[in-house]
């Protein structure tokens, strides 16, 4: 009925990245402002890092996107990220990524591990950056992240022109130093120009970051198995406790 890799052609796309809809009314702005003053929004205030990196769709790794992660650390081994397509005011919420240490990853069952991707290459190659943060400050955190694994579900396929979030979530994969995992030069240069940085220079500065002793072969599943994953949504009978709907 719905799948992550099938697209609905019914909605026209015109290149405008903003979702359809009327601009916010003054009344709504006032409401929002009021809420903001009265409410504490604690979990959101705990987001402490912005990272810019790249990912590809596991069901079609030729489709690569730039991503913006807003990251909360829950403990030394676990981070949770709200992922957007840009770091602008109108950034679209395109998914969620979870990041865990290698220690926690090794305890997962193999069927779970295959949904995760490694971060070592992404970080050491300079693809993952914390915009505007000097290298010396980001270094300890990156040395920690180098050994982590991530699980990233994308719920809005903006790169294929979807004006609204359609279909099932897609599992995303990280850049890797082999063919399907390489980030396109156009995408990379666009990112570097925007932040006036050089991924090449970052790679050089990260050369001495310790590498993980090994990367679990269940992660980055496509590398060893040549397979990606799609999610299908199927109709079924609902277990009820009252009539529905």
């Amino acid at each position: 009925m719905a799948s992550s890799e099938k697209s609905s052609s019914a909605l026209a796309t015109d290149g405008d990245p903003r979702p359809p809809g009327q601009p916010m009314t003054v009344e709504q702005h006032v409401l929002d402002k009021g809420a903001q003053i009265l409410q504490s929004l604690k979990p959101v205030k705990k987001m402490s890092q912005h990272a810019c990196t790249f990912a590809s769709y596991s069901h079609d790794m030729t489709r690569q996107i730039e991503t913006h992660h807003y990251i909360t650390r829950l403990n030394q081994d676990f981070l949770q990220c709200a992922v957007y397509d840009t770091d602008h005011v109108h950034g679209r919420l395109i998914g969620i990524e979870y990041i865990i240490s290698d220690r926690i990853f090794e305890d997962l069952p193999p069927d779970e591990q295959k949904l995760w991707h490694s971060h070592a290459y992404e970080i050491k190659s300079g693809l993952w950056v914390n915009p505007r943060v000097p290298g010396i400050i980001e270094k300890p955190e990156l040395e920690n992240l180098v050994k982590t694994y991530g699980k990233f579900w994308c719920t809005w396929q903006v790169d294929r022109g979807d004006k609204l979030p359609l279909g099932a979530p897609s599992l995303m994969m990280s850049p890797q130093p082999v063919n399907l995992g390489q980030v396109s030069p156009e995408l990379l240069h666009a990112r570097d120009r925007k932040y006036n940085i050089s991924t090449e220079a970052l790679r050089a500065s990260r050369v001495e970051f310790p590498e993980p002793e090994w990367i679990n072969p269940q992660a980055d599943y496509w590398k060893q198995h040549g397979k990606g994953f799609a999610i299908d949504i199927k109709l079924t009978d609902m277990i009820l406790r009252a009539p529905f709907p």
Partner: protein
Amino acid sequence: MSSTHPEVPGEPTKTGTAFLETATATIQSFAPINQIHQHLCAFHFYSYDMTRQVEAHHYCAHQNEEMRQCLIYDSPDADARLIGLEYVISEPLFLTLPDDEKRLWHSHEYEVKSGLLFMPGVPGSIERQDMEKLAKTYGKVFHFWQVDRRDNLPLGIPQVMMAFTRDGQIYEDLVKGVENRYGISVAKERENRAYISGPTHGIHPLANGGAKGLKTELREVDCKPTDSVPQGLCLSIN
């Protein structure tokens, strides 16, 4: 300045890490996050199993008057777990969706009129101004972390979630829980919201799963052949 989480495996955050994160939080631009202006408390159930119900704390930002995007946490606390997300769209936008897509979205009319959906800390008279709009909207929710089955990590595949649509579906305990914690009365707010109306064209018959459950499944697919990928930079890390 270390932090830990009672239910997520892992060591407490080291002081050095916490310090770094204070620095990055000060220097960086958080523009999309700064748009999050609203906390809504609501309840979802798994779209194939109404007996599994979850309290869901939404933190919402407007893309425009007709569309919101929300992060969903399992609690309103600083150490809350990010368990999912929701998109909310107006009735006109909903009607533009292909039919198969409509099934993945749920109506909000009952949640609003019953008093189950509320904005913690916001007085009813202000809250109702937004409730009038929300009653006509549709939402699409995925959860990635099944905290109700005590998973201490986000295991498995995404779950489509539904919202309640009539009396008798939600567990009374869940309702009493928020009433006690927030000092509110859902029944009283229901009376206050009696004047609120739902979608202009009525709840679409394909919304809410089209009255069916929805189950997600994982499927392996073949990777594209490698020569379909541009050669690109080979960023060797050695």
